[in-house]
């Protein structure tokens, strides 16, 4: 006997990864609108969000005019403890997502005297992105990442910064930081058709809007002046 239905759905770990990215993109746009309303520079709340990119930092070189931090959300692993869930339909897992925040700094002349060091700027940019990301994902609004019932909780396990390798000094000052986010979620698998002992489940999904280069864009429109 084979599985009679086509497996044509995303697993919850994929949905959750996309949801994290959508939340960050949407809230970043919302924060920029709030900053504009407060007469502050909205660019300080701008994040460029991507998922599963192997080299998001390349964007700093492709478009040097935009130096806003880049955030890359990627799935690392899921752990399935045998004591949670059941062997038939539902398994509870703890999925770990790495949210890498890249900050970019270029040394520049200071007309008032001296110069602005790029290494410090790159680190501050990365930490500003970490600050925004942590506050957004750990806000009470997103206790269940807008997927209550599918996700039973999330916990920020670590925040760590990466120091550039001295032997690999590049002309650009790029500093990265990582937030490791653990999410408790349920994964489901195909069931035998017409089995009355198994509850019928509705599949969840996330609608992700992307720009041409793959950048995740906000779900809603916000008014702000860049």
């Amino acid at each position, binding site marked *: 006997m084979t599985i009679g239905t086509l497996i044509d759905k995303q697993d919850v770990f994929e949905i959750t990864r996309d949801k994290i990215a959508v939340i960050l993109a949407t809230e970043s746009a919302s924060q920029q609108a709030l900053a504009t309303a407060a007469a502050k520079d909205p660019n300080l709340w701008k994040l460029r969000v991507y998922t599963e990119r192997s*080299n998001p*930092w390349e964007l700093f070189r492709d478009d040097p005019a935009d130096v806003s931090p880049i955030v890359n959300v990627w799935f690392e692993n899921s752990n399935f403890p045998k004591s949670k869930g059941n062997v038939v339909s539902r398994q509870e897992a703890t999925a770990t997502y790495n949210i890498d925040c890249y900050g970019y700094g*270029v040394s520049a*002349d200071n007309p008032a005297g001296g110069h602005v060091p*790029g290494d410090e700027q790159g680190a501050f940019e990365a930490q500003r992105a970490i600050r925004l990301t942590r506050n957004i994902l750990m806000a009470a609004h997103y206790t269940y990442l807008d997927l209550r019932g599918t996700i039973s909780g999330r916990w920020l396990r670590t925040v760590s910064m990466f120091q550039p*390798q001295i032997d*690999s000094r*590049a*002309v*650009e000052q790029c500093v990265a930081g990582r937030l490791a986010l653990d999410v408790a979620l349920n994964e489901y698998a195909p069931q035998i058709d017409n089995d009355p002992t198994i509850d019928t489940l509705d599949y969840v999904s996330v609608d992700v809007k992307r720009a041409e280069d793959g950048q995740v864009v906000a779900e809603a429109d916000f008014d702000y002046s860049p």
Partner: protein
Amino acid sequence: MGLRATAEADLAGILEDKTAGFGWDITITDPAGSPASLVGYSNDIGLSIDPDTGQAVSGRRASIALRISSLTAAGLGIPMGIVDSTSKPWVVTFDDINGTAHTFKVQESHPDRAIGMVTCLLELYDV
């Protein structure tokens, strides 16, 4: 002339020969704002670097090598990385092979006072 002095004299051909060697026009400005047009060896290449995120990313490394005696003759000292933000850095400008000028600041320098050459690692600098 001993071998060490010979090695220093050979730098004229190794670093500063624009006709038959790899010599390239380089403009260097010290923190006091004094510029000097020298000939030396310049490098600006792409490379793979590891920011410790588990994914190597593409980067860019630039460097120059200059004869110390030429710097002295131009009235300049040995370039070094300036971390004090209240001071101007050593600024270096040179063209790439296609004639586009690029401006850098000296990130760190490695002078070899034995044979009279200084190598400077560069980072991008906006003027």
